[in-house]
């Protein structure tokens, strides 16, 4: 079963609508540095991070080439493969720049993806909340104990 999941909850419904309307198989919203904001279709959290890192790398290197050529920021890149197409878009929201990486199959097309991407960008702009005040403390003062236990279990030994 494919799922849609969001780290930033306000992105969830716009992404769900986009996936349904554009017929996307995989969709990923990230920051320009490759941090995952929302995703559809990936089954393992750690695999989605690899896709996010690669998408951010493509976007960053393309933007750098644009800058060298004194071209405006690119908006979208596409690649049409044999079974899948890949679409990578770069856009602004009230909460900062975002990247969208979309993989689509025979049931969709680049035209559909582009069309509904415009809707997605509009809906994200409308849904973005005003930046709320965050709790003052993230980690407890004694987080080292948790960190040591986590690293020990991760690496299978005492550190």
């Amino acid at each position: 079963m494919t799922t849609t999941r969001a780290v930033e909850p306000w992105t969830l419904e716009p992404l769900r609508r986009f996936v349904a309307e554009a017929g996307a198989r995989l969709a990923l919203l990230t920051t320009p540095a490759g941090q995952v904001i929302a995703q559809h279709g990936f089954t393992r959290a750690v695999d989605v991070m690899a896709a996010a890192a690669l998408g951010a790398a493509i976007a960053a290197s393309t933007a750098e080439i644009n800058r060298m050529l004194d071209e405006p920021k690119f908006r979208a890149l596409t690649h049409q493969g044999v079974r899948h197409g890949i679409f990578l878009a770069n856009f602004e929201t009230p909460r900062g720049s975002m990247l969208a990486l979309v993989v689509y199959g025979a049931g969709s097309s680049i035209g559909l993806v582009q069309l509904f991407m415009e809707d997605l960008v509009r809906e994200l702009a409308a849904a973005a909340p005003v930046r709320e005040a965050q709790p003052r403390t993230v980690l407890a003062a004694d987080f080292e104990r948790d960190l040591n236990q986590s690293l020990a279990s991760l690496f299978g030994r005492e550190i």
Partner: protein
Amino acid sequence: MSLVNFTTREITCKLVYYGPGRSGKTTNLQYIYQRVPEDRRGRMVSLATQTDRTLFFDFLPIELGAISGFKTRFQLYTVPGQVYYNATRKLVLQGADGVVFVADSQARQLDENIESMQNLHANLLEHGIDVRTLPVVLQYNKQDLPADLVLTPVELDEAINFRTWPSFAADALKGKGVFETLRALSERVLRRLSEAESA
């Protein structure tokens, strides 16, 4: 920059392994990949040349588990060490929460270490990152080589560690010092995150 979500209680941090070519940055990630249980790590992605030199980056996501009730993930990146890949090196550094500088302990590589350290400072400056506040740890790799070929950690500290960052002797091929380095950077990154949010 770390992504902290208070609703889902998740933290994701980006750690970058920096240093001159062939100093052992990819070897660090390969060792971590081999040792971490499969369900706690993702696929290791390597964008490399046909001769296995890093062209853009290596990438390895790992799940630490719960830290103070936050599900914590680290994204480990390496940069290409070769001098002429500076443009891509700079891109990978974007958004870094912490840096491991992997130095090659061989005496004949000292100039490359110094040049790479200067390059790290220059690239951080271009990203507007204050190197004085960014968590950085140094790893002196290849300390297993014969003593007459390598500089000691004390000598390397004097040569490149003018900010007195924590430093660790290592033999990344066999894993010595790899986890200690990662642990030290993890702690500093999370401490900085905690201090920044509570300030």
